[in-house]
């Protein structure tokens, strides 16, 4: 088999981030002239693997060999010099430079030591023609291009480096279908030239169509590598899950019909939300599932008034609810709270005290006229800390001194202080310890029991199963499955997330509910 002469070989590679393991003893290899698909859930270690290969991260243990030689890349440049070129998920283009400048950014053609703009322009045109993007003007700035075109420029940039190993990390996710076909053709050409392509995608049919070999990752470990066709789709989904649910969840109440509280109809935004229909009852917990970046975050931001140019209807108790800013969303008319995705930038002001952070969203409640009432503030802070049992030495400590779990509790407590009726949670348990996670699950259920309406996005399927009354799975800006009751299983969620029809169609009968 092709593994006789691998171009890239990893032996026993491990990587840990502050206690959590991202990769554990991974052995992996791929051969020239193949297209190798890599599969895994969120957090399975795919991104870490790619970052190690492309020189962004260094492994804690193990060796990486390229073409039989052991290498240790400390920068992306060194990886490129060895012929490993990565097309990143977060684009590596500079928005204020031209397309041609970006394609040859690190190694432009030069004349007398200066960049030869004419040659650069010509070669950029050649590369763009190779990926059938003749309509892109090499002189236009990257920020003027659409997302799909930018992605194609990114691919042209990678091709310009003459890769021996080309890594495509979700590189087709933003492309139009015409461009996807072009990329398929390109990958086939590269395979004929002996280039190895590592293809990471969440679209099962793409992997099925393109790849010769498949590798499945799970929990930072390499599970299995096999030739295409060796396993059915259903078997692959099982390989990707294969773990036990360890956390304990509070018992769910018996499903009772609840009056609609929030009603979303045909909500669309900038091609990232494509007509969302969803209703949530008062006191209900609805989970949002799916792989990262399918529009879940945008849906929550849209409801919270962060996005401009939303189309469609949103109503709370039949009253239109279209806040123009978070300030309006949290106001008395709507009473919405959003616990944001990134607590370090959007949730907390890291350099300020715990007390200041707790009060940040609810100054209206603790002021007398224009002045903050110190006594009310202290009382509110004490209540907030007690309610979530945040472990603090003093409320005046800087919030960044707390552990991740306690920081997240501060964010949640801050929003509960505003006494919201609709609570939007964006992956609230990411990166925090199991104990705190369980407290948060319990809290979410208590809030629902008290009549709060909750929309919870989680990248952890187990959490959706354990916590939610219903689950809506998103794929490519749409809700592709609505599951409820016993139909919420890991298999159904994973299958819907990949938009493949294993057992999902059967169990998706819950879709009629909402």
């Amino acid at each position, binding site marked *: 088999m092709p593994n006789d002469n691998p171009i890239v070989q990893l032996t026993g590679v491990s990587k840990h981030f502050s206690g959590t393991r991202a990769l554990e003893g991974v052995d992996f290899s791929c051969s020239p002239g193949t297209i190798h698909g890599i599969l895994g859930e969120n957090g399975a270690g795919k991104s870490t693997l790619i970052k190690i290969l492309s020189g*962004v991260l260094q492994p804690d243990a193990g060796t990486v060999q390229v073409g039989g030689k052991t290498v240790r890349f400390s*920068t*992306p*440049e060194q990886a*490129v010099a060895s012929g490993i070129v990565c097309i*990143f998920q*977060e*684009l*590596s*283009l*500079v*928005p*204020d*430079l031209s397309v041609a*400048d970006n394609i040859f*950014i*690190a190694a*432009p053609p030069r004349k007398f*030591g*200066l*960049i030869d*703009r004419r040659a650069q322009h010509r070669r950029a045109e050649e590369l763009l023609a190779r990926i059938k993007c003749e309509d892109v*003007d090499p*002189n*236009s*700035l990257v920020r003027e291009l659409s997302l799909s075109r930018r992605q194609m420029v990114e691919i042209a940039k990678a091709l310009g480096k003459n890769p021996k190993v080309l890594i495509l990390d979700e590189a087709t996710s933003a492309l139009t279908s015409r461009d996807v076909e072009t990329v398929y053709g390109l990958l086939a050409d590269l395979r004929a030239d002996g280039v190895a392509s590592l293809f990471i995608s969440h679209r099962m049919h793409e992997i099925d169509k393109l790849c010769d070999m498949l590798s499945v990752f799970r929990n930072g470990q390499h599970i299995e590598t096999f030739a295409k066709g060796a396993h059915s789709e259903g078997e692959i989904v099982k390989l990707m899950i294969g773990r036990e649910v360890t956390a304990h969840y509070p018992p769910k109440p018996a499903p009772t019909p609840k009056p609609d509280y929030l009603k979303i109809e045909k909500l669309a*935004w*900038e091609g990232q939300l494509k007509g969302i229909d969803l209703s949530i009852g008062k006191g209900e917990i609805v989970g949002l599932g799916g792989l990262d970046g399918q529009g879940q975050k*945008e849906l929550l*931001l849209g409801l919270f008034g*962060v*996005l*401009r*140019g939303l189309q469609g209807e949103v109503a709370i108790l039949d009253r239109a609810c279209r806040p123009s*800013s978070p300030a309006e969303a949290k106001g008395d008319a709507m009473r919405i709270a959003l616990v944001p995705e990134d607590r370090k930038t*959007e949730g907390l002001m890291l350099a300020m005290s715990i007390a200041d952070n707790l009060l940040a969203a609810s100054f209206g409640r603790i002021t007398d006229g224009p002045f903050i009432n110190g006594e009310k503030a202290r009382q509110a802070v004490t209540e907030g800390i007690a309610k979530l049992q945040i472990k603090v030495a003093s409320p005046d400590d800087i919030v960044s001194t707390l552990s991740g779990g306690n920081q997240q509790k501060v964010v949640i407590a801050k929003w509960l202080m505003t006494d919201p009726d609709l609570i939007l949670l964006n992956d609230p348990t990411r990166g925090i310890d199991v104990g705190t996670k369980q407290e948060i699950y319990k809290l979410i259920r208590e809030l629902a029991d008290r009549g709060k309406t909750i929309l919870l996005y989680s990248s952890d399927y187990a959490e959706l199963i354990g916590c939610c009354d219903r689950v809506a799975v998103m794929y490519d800006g749409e809700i592709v499955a609505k599951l409820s009751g016993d139909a919420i299983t890991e298999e159904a969620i994973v299958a819907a997330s990949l938009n493949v029809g294993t057992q999902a169609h059967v169990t998706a009968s819950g879709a009629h509910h909402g």
Partner: protein
Amino acid sequence: MVEVRSAAATNVRQNLAFYGAVALLVALYLVYNMLHPRGFSAAVLIQNSNESVAIVFLAMAQTVPVLLGGLDLSVGAIMTLANCIASEVVHGSPLQIVLGMILTLASGTAFGLVNGLIVVYGRLQPIIATLATGAVAVGLALFIRPVPGGNVDDDISWALTNDLYEFVATYGFFNADAAWFQPVAWIPVPLLIVVVIAFGVWLPFKRTVTGRTIYAVGSAEGAAYMSGLPINRAKIAAFTLAGFFAACAGLYLAIQTSSGNADITQAGAYTLNSIAAVVVGGTSLLGGVGGAIGSLVGALILRVISFYFRIVSIDPLLQPLVEGLVLLVAVSLGAFRTLRVKNQLNLFR
């Protein structure tokens, strides 16, 4: 033809701020000459050029760190330091004069290099690092020249602050009355110096990988890193180049005034005006967009506005107020970008 035209259209669209500034400058200066009793004369042009050189160089100096997304608060101070050094060394034999000018430019450049090293390896924010080094530069200038004065060669002073005719006549390179020389004899030397440095230093620099890295860092430092660009080298080069341009300003100031003056107030005012000129010239304070030629134009706009106060009967006390209003208008034109942002969170990134 069509292709050339569309390339030109792309260029104009991408540099609207710059071309807008150029149009504004041309309009302002034409009107100024019409109102001036001796408008459109060589004498007015020479005088105006002389008075603009220092701020033009300083604006170009400020541009480079701003493109990175930083600010250099030491440019005025480096100019003052170079001014004082020049007042000590630019005299004597022709060789001594040339060496003195090189020494002046080299000291400013070296000071900029130190700024860059401190920012990169000291991991300080440019604004605070240069606030400190700026104070050091003024201190050194005071040490060199505790009281204003100095000795700058009279011939070079005369030759470099007049038109080309006087320049040639002073040094007798050839017969300055020669018929072929007359069409260019009226050009002011200061204007020529600015053009030569701007186009001979800045434009080639912009076409190096280091130069382009400066734009990339200011636009998206993460993408620049992921693309394997020499980020540290670019930062050091940016501050070094700023030091060089600031030294050009200081050297010219010494030649123009025939003296050196370690004036702390002047250093600060020049620094702040350089920031204003950069913004008026279309360079974004967030970095990544703009260029030194734009700042050259921006500095000239600010200068021309101040010239107006000499010929129009407005109370000169109103000058700061009017300049402030002009700056506000110029800056608010740049804010239209924010109206197009769809995800309001992106406004903060």
